[in-house]
């Protein structure tokens, strides 16, 4: 439950703990939960969100009298790299009606994995759009489902009209090593982005 071990935490009071947030996005059934479960124990996070119909979040909130709430269950998992350095993976709720939660989720995130299923590639368009607009580093992970036609990563890149620096990787997220490689690719992509930004002397 506690962050780090009870012994180790506080051994070096000068070192601040670092928590890193990574989002796992993609369409329904693209393998978000499977990816998280391949690398760590899956835990559930409940949210209760006010819900008053599709217009409520774009219109003024005045006059929203018939507000009700909905439960959204989110998967998350924790990977401890070492004491005081922990990664949190959050599966983003894919359905469009939960999009109002994404801003809070994406705030302060290091980056995102967008899982793509080539049988339903269009399902990941909204996630790609969202992260591009937020300028959040992301990697597209093409989950190779049994029986699905295999595509070359460059074909997927072209179909999604991705920036050349965005990594596109084929994966099978049921495999721990494959899920892990996807995360490593994202971290390296994010690191390169930070280094580029620093070299250019700009803030991202």
């Amino acid at each position: 439950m506690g962050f780090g071990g009870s012994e180790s935490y506080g051994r070096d009071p000068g070192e601040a703990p670092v928590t890193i947030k990574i989002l796992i996005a993609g369409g329904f059934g693209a393998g978000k939960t499977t990816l998280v479960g391949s690398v760590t124990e899956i835990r559930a996070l409940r949210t209760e969100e006010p819900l008053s119909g599709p217009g409520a979040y774009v219109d003024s909130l005045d006059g929203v009298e018939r507000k009700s709430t909905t439960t959204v269950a989110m998967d998350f998992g924790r990977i401890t790299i070492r004491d005081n350095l922990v990664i949190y993976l959050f599966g983003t709720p894919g359905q469009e009606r939960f999009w109002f939660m994404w801003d809070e989720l994406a705030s302060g995130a290091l980056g995102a994995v967008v899982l793509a299923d080539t049988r339903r590639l269009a399902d990941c368009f909204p996630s790609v759009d969202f992260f591009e607009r937020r300028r959040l580093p992301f990697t597209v992970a093409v989950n190779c489902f049994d029986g699905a036609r295999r595509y070359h990563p460059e074909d997927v890149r072209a179909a999604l009209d991705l920036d050349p620096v965005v990594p596109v990787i084929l994966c099978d997220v049921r495999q721990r090593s494959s899920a892990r490689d996807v995360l490593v690719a994202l971290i390296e992509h994010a690191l390169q982005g930070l280094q580029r930004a620093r070299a250019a002397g700009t803030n991202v």
Partner: protein
Amino acid sequence: MAEEDRWLDEEAGPVVRPYALTRGRTRPTGETLDLIALVTAVRGAEVDPVGLDPEHLALLAMCRLPASVADLASELDLPLGVVQILLADLRVRSLISVHHPTPPAQMPDPRILKEVADGLRRL
């Protein structure tokens, strides 16, 4: 189907009143704590239980060691928004301290990400 029912299917879950615990408040006092903010009970703080619910006290017990907001909400099995409000109550009373996550762009040393990648490879 009425317009307002259109978005409430089985996946949306039951329509309930989860904010009874927060006495109807749907926003925390002060800023909303990030999912990965670390919360620690202040050692030796005098806890006056008046005005605190069992859930407040449970949270205090759970964060004797630093714990993330996500972990606390999951462990307590209460909605995230409710836990964020309860934690804000504890914070106002100076019963917890909060360590905010550093935004990636402001990390003092981005090489920490290299350590993360190396750590993941060892998984």
